[in-house]
């Protein structure tokens, strides 16, 4: 986990692959699934690059990765270390495989996030699954299809080029005879190592990919059959709970466990500073922990009141400016239009509805853990390190979980459950309470952003200076054409534990930049959309601005004190988005409500339009919280609002009318869409509020019921 910087992964590149002998463990693998065709890749390039960057020198566990298996019944298993957290990647990757393999989607089972079965994967974040895993699996599927065609050609003693593959069969069009894939693979141990790049089906020709196939396992979710990490049950399983300090950075002074240990079946587990209990049920485990009498020494620590000054004071230049060009100071001093503004964003919580959870089971010195994480291999390594095990002694499985939004990169619950299970000698389930999840996970970083910018009197931008203190560098670069620029991310000492959050710092940087663009447009007396287009060359970003404006009816009506219209947009991680927002203001009640949002989105060729729409609408709704009211309140090492009764999240009543305009660029590679859809809402709302009231609100959240200590009183409440 970093302070929110981008993983900056290399783009996927195809290479020519070479044939390698199959290692023993892969033959075991084939036996495990029965005979059939196993498609492997020597030195998977995308994975090797991922592992090489941020995990410096991390050795791949195997030098051949198995990605696809077809059994005698033509059932296809696809292996990927990516995980499903609600973003619908289980379905959309299956569509891409079905497309290239020419099989019905129902033949495909995705095996995901299982460290014993899937090739190494760095994790599910950074909107990387679609752009990297998509082509990876498509390549494996295309190679498998070709291998099957060749197998049929050999049996019929025909030229492979004369045969076709469709609907899970290889057919000789002249005689109409065919073999199912299962007939071609069944009963044999076939291993096909991909040794060449494959020609992939262009998106314009897609028949399965590119369509709105419903979630493949949707029925399991509406019947309660799906098992989340917190639902896993093992034979003889006990339940754990952990004693938490009363504040951050606390030291335990004394512990009286006599009352807790009198409870039936309760066992205390103490391991250095770690104190936990196991019990026959979760209720007893929680009661035992609440019966522990512990004294803690909690040092004095900062609060919201000092937060932003602290971030600026503790910042350092980091790697230096992200970009520096032209004479910023000179342009700022001489240009006729000049706007300077400081923006701040508070910490917010991911608050996934399923808190951290793990079930740990020891078998001798081997450890198996079911847990909710976006990085199963990362958690495997954390466990191996914590318990001094080799990586192959640890097996992590990631059942599709109750989401993460960037908040579940780490393995705290997995390690705690494993500690408790080792002491108990039985499997142990640990599910964090909501209060634990709010307090002991990590937060979306707080930040201070300072922008100074200048334009000529006709609205041509000439200078842009953007400093981000602590919140991160994602999307910090301006997409607008500006000759003189200084753009600089300054890492700082965060008083709270912080990490990734959906879109990383893009939401904060786009909020500041697009608020600033709005202020400049008003200063230049230009329509905010015209002003952007005047300074924007990127055709993809222009296209989403124009699409959003058109669908919204931008410029058709003027804002009034009771009704404001705002526009904002941005690009990051291959996604392009722009939103128009309408807000309704009740001047008497000093309240604001978002009534309508139209957001345009483009991320290349669309793999599943319905799934994509679901993601973008979800991102807009989640963005409402960070825009208007979500904020972590803290003081002296404590979170002051660690409950849903105190930390407000968007609900049905907060949701405006939402319209999403998807632009399908079949000529462009598919990019990820889980994150960047969140960036445009907050600045569009801020700009709508300004249009209505003439008041610029440069802080997130903009309209909480009560301000954080030290923050200005919000002019409006939501």
């Amino acid at each position, binding site marked *: 986990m970093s302070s929110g910087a981008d993983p900056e992964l290399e783009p996927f590149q195809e290479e020519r692959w070479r044939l390698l002998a199959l290692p023993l463990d892969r033959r075991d693998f084939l036996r495990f699934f029965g005979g059939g065709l196993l498609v492997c890749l020597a030195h998977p390039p995308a994975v090797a690059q991922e592992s090489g960057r941020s995990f410096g020198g991390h050795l791949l566990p195997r030098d051949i990765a198995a990605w696809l298996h077809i059994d005698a019944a033509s059932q296809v298993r696809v292996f990927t270390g990516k995980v499903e957290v609600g973003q619908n990647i289980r379905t959309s990757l299956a569509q891409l495989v079905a497309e290239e393999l020419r099989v019905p989607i129902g033949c495909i089972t995705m095996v995901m996030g299982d460290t014993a079965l899937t090739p190494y994967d760095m994790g599910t974040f950074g909107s990387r699954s679609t752009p990297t895993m998509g082509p990876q699996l498509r390549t494996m599927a295309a190679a498998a299809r070709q291998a099957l065609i060749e197998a049929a050609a050999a049996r019929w003693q025909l030229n492979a080029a004369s045969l076709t593959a469709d609907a899970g069969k290889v057919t000789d069009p002249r005689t109409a005879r065919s073999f199912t894939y299962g007939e071609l693979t069944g009963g044999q141990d076939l291993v096909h190592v991909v040794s060449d790049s494959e020609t992939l089906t262009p998106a314009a020709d897609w028949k399965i990919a590119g369509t709105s196939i419903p979630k493949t396992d949707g029925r399991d979710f509406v019947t309660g059959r799906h098992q989340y990490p917190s639902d896993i049950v093992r034979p003889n399983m006990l339940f754990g709970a952990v004693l938490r300090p009363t504040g951050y950075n606390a030291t335990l002074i004394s512990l009286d466990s006599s009352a807790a240990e009198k409870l039936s079946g309760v066992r205390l587990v103490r391991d250095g500073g770690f104190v936990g209990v196991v019990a026959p049920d979760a209720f007893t485990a929680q009661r035992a922990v609440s019966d522990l009498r512990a004294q803690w020494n909690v040092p004095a620590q900062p609060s919201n009141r000092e937060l932003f000054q602290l971030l600026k004071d503790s910042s350092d230049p980091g790697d230096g400016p992200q970009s520096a060009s032209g004479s910023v100071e000179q342009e700022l001093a001489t240009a006729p239009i000049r706007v300077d503004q400081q923006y701040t964003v508070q910490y917010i919580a991911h608050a996934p509805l399923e808190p951290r959870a793990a079930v740990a089971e020891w078998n001798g010195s081997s450890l198996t853990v079911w847990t909710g994480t976006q990085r199963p291999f990362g958690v495997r390594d954390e466990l191996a390190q914590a318990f001094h095990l080799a990586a192959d002694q640890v097996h992590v499985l990631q059942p599709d979980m109750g989401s993460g939004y960037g908040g579940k990169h780490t393995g705290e619950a997995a390690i705690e459950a494993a500690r408790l299970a080792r002491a108990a000698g039985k499997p142990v389930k640990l599910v964090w309470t909501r209060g634990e999840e709010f307090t002991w996970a990590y937060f979306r970083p707080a930040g201070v952003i300072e922008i100074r910018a200048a334009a000529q009197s006709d609205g041509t931008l000439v200078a842009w200076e953007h400093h981000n203190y602590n919140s991160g560098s994602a999307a910090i670069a301006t997409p607008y054409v500006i000759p003189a620029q200084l753009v600089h991310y300054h890492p700082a000492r965060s008083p709270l534990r912080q990490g990734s959050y959906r879109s990383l710092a893009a939401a904060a940087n786009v909020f500041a930049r697009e608020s600033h663009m709005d202020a400049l447009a008003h200063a230049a007396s230009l329509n905010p959309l015209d002003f952007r287009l005047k300074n924007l060359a990127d055709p993809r970003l222009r296209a989403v601005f124009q699409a959003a404006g058109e669908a919204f009816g931008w410029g058709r009506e003027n804002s009034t004190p009771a009704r404001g219209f705002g526009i904002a947009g941005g690009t990051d991680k291959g996604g392009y988005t722009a939103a128009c927002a309408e807000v309704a203001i009740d001047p008497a009640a000093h309240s604001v409500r978002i009534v309508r949002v139209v957001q345009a989105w483009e991320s290349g060729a669309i793999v599943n339009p319905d799934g994509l729409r679901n993601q973008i609408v979800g991102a807009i709704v989640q963005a409402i919280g960070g825009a208007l009211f979500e904020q972590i309140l803290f003081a002296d090492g404590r979170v002051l609002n660690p*409950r849903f009764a105190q930390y407000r999240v968007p609900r049905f009543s907060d949701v405006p009318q939402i319209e999403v305009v998807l632009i399908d660029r079949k000529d462009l590679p598919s990019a990820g869409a889980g994150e960047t859809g969140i960036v445009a809402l907050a600045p569009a709302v801020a700009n709508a509020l300004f249009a209505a009231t003439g008041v610029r609100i440069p802080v997130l959240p903009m309209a909480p019921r009560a301000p954080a200590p030290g923050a200005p009183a919000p002019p409006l409440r939501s």
Partner: protein
Amino acid sequence: MGEFVLHINGSHLSVTAAPEESLLSVLRDHLKLTGTHYGCGEGQCGACTVLLDGVAARSCLMPVGDVGGAHIVTIEGLEQNGRLTPVQQAFLDEGALQCGYCTSGMILSAVSLLRQTPHPTDQQIVASMNGNVCRCGTYPRILAAIRRAAHGVSQ
């Protein structure tokens, strides 16, 4: 500890638990009915919703000792002989879920609403469902699913 006979999804099930233990943890930890989910433990998110005599209730706030002879329906009890209820089917038809962790509580809350108000207005749906959190933000589709279940089609 006490011995409780609970009427759940049409069966009588016997559990030994402390009377103040929540119905939620009895369902999940004693009876392995894990389709009912923990989200907050304070009745604020609705993930733990079950039907008590046909009415939505927060199982995290309900001590098992207070359940008595009420008929409990959990998400596992809605499907009958492989047939989904209209609300379950509408959630599938509208694609009204992302991670799905809130879905069982959403469905049971919606079933309860439609039992009391078969043809709710949007305002009634919002008012009735506002205690259920979907952190993935799928609310517009859930609203559409409830409309579809109430009126037979999506509107």
